[in-house]
C-alpha cells in the first residue's frame, strides 16, 4: 500500500456546550478509523450533520479530537508545520472584501511560504487554472458566489499542495461553474494530488473519486471502492441510499 496522506485512528470528537451551568454533549465523530493514500481521490458522503465538516476540521487542527490520533502527511494534525502541504477549501469560503483575487492569493501565498518569482508564478497559475484572470483586479466583495468559490479553489491550489481538502466545493454553483470546477479537480487528480472531497452531489463524487466513505451520525459506516459502485444496480447513489436509510 502507498504512503498515507491522512490517517484517523480511533478518533472521536464530542462537542460540549455549557449554558447556565448545564453542559450538554453532542457527538461529532465517533471511533473513526480511516486512511487515505497519497495520490488517491477520496469522497466523503453523508447527510447533513453526519460529521463531514468535523472530520475535515479535525484533520486541519481547527478542532481537537476528544480521543484518538490523527496524522496528516506524516505529522500530527495539531502541528501547523504540516499545513504547508495542504490546500483547504471550506464550504462557502470567506475572504477579505477589500482585497482583489490577485491580492488575496498574494496574501495566502506568502503565508504558505511562497515569495518572489515562485509567488508570482503560483498566483498566475492559480488564476489561470480557475479562470479568474479577467476579474483578478476586482474587489472580492463585488464578485458573484461562483467567482468567489473559484477564488476559494485558487487559494487552495496556489502553493502546489500534496493534499487538497474540499468541503462541498460545488455547493450553490450554477451548472457551468460546476463543470468548470469538475474539470479543475480532474486536472488536479491527473497531476497526482491527493483529493479529499465532501459533497451532497453524489454524481460529482462518483465521477472524481477512487473510493468513498459514508458517514452516518458521526460514524463511518461504509467505505467503498469505485468497482463496487460500478457493479451496483443504481451506482453510487443506490449504495449511498441503501447505507444511510
Amino acid at each position: 500500500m502507498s504512503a498515507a496522506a491522512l490517517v484517523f485512528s480511533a478518533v472521536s470528537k464530542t462537542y460540549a456546550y455549557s449554558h447556565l451551568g448545564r453542559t450538554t454533549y453532542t457527538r461529532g465523530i465517533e471511533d473513526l478509523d480511516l486512511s487515505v493514500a497519497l495520490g488517491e481521490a477520496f469522497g466523503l458522503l453523508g447527510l447533513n450533520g453526519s460529521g463531514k465538516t468535523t472530520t475535515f476540521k479535525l484533520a486541519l487542527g481547527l478542532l481537537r479530537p476528544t480521543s484518538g490520533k490523527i496524522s496528516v502527511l506524516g505529522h500530527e494534525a495539531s502541528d501547523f508545520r504540516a499545513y504547508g502541504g495542504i490546500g483547504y477549501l471550506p464550504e462557502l469560503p470567506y475572504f477579505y472584501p477589500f482585497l482583489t483575487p490577485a491580492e488575496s492569493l498574494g496574501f495566502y501565498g506568502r503565508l504558505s511560504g511562497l515569495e518572489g518569482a515562485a509567488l508570482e508564478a503560483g498566483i498566475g497559475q492559480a488564476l489561470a487554472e480557475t479562470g479568474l484572470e479577467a476579474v483578478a483586479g476586482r474587489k472580492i466583495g463585488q464578485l458573484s458566489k461562483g467567482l468567489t468559490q473559484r477564488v476559494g479553489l485558487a487559494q487552495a491550489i496556489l502553493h502546489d499542495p500534496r493534499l487538497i481538502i474540499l468541503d462541498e466545493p460545488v455547493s450553490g454553483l450554477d451548472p457551468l461553474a460546476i463543470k468548470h470546477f469538475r474539470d479543475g479537480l480532474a486536472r488536479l487528480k491527473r497531476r497526482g494530488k491527493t483529493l479529499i472531497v465532501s459533497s451532497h452531489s453524489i454524481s460529482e463524487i462518483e465521477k472524481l473519486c477512487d473510493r468513498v466513505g459514508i458517514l452516518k451520525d458521526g460514524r463511518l459506516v461504509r467505505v467503498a471502492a469505485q468497482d463496487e459502485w460500478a457493479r451496483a444496480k443504481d451506482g453510487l447513489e443506490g449504495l449511498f441510499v441503501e447505507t444511510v436509510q
Partner: protein
Amino acid sequence: MRNVWILARNSWQENVRGKFFALTVVFAVLVLYISVLLGALAADQEVRVLYDFGLSFIELMGLAGALYGATTVILREMEAKTIYLILTRPVSRGEFLFGRFLGLAMSAAASMATMAAFHLLLLFLKGWRWDSLYALALLGAYLKVLITAALAVALALFSSSVLTALSITLILWTLGHFLPELRYMIAWGPAQWQMAPLRALSFVIPDLQLLNYRDQLAAASAQRPPTWLAFSYAPLYAGIWLLIARSLLRKKEF
C-alpha cells in the same frame, strides 16, 4: 516573524482602504475646532487649553479606535470564518495574534500621528514654540493605548464577547489612572488580609499614571518616575497580556 509581518500588513491594508483613517481625520478636524473655540473662551490661556485639550483628545480617539480594533480583531475573524484560511496554513496561532496586534499598533500610531500633526499645526498658528515634552506626552499616550489594547485582546478572547471585553477594559482603564491612590489605600488600609483582593487587583490594573506625561508635565513640581521605568513597563505589561491571549487562542476551537 515573517508571518507576523504579513498579517500586520494585511491589517494595515484593511484600515487604509476602510474608513478608519478618513474618520480619524474628520474627528481630528472637528474636535480641534472645538478646542480652538474653548481656547477663545480662555483668552489668556488659549495656547494652554489648546495644548491640553488636544493631547487628551488624541489619546481618547486613539484609545477608542484601538479598543474597537482590539476587542473585535480576532472575534470578527472567527465569526466571518476568514480565520480558517489562515490557520490552515503554516502559521502558528501566536503568529496570527501578534501579527494582528502589530497591525493594530501600526494603525493606532498612524491615526495618533495624523491627529498630532493637525494639533501641532494649530499650536504653531497660535504662536506656540516646539517643546520636546510634547513628543514625550504623545509617546506616553500611545503606550497607554497599546497596553490597554493588549489587555482588551486577552479579555475578548477570554469572554468571547465584545461588549464584556470592552466594559471590563474600560473599568480597568479608569482604575489605571488611580493606581497610586489604590496602592496608598492598600498600604494604609485596615488589616492586610482584608486588602488582599485589592492588592491582587492592583497587579492586574495597568499603571497608566506612570505613562501619563501630559498630567505630570502640567504639574511641573510633581515628582516623576524615571522615563526608562515607564517605557520598560509598557512593553512588559502589554507582553504579558499578549502571552495570556496567545495561550487562550491556542485552546480555541473553530
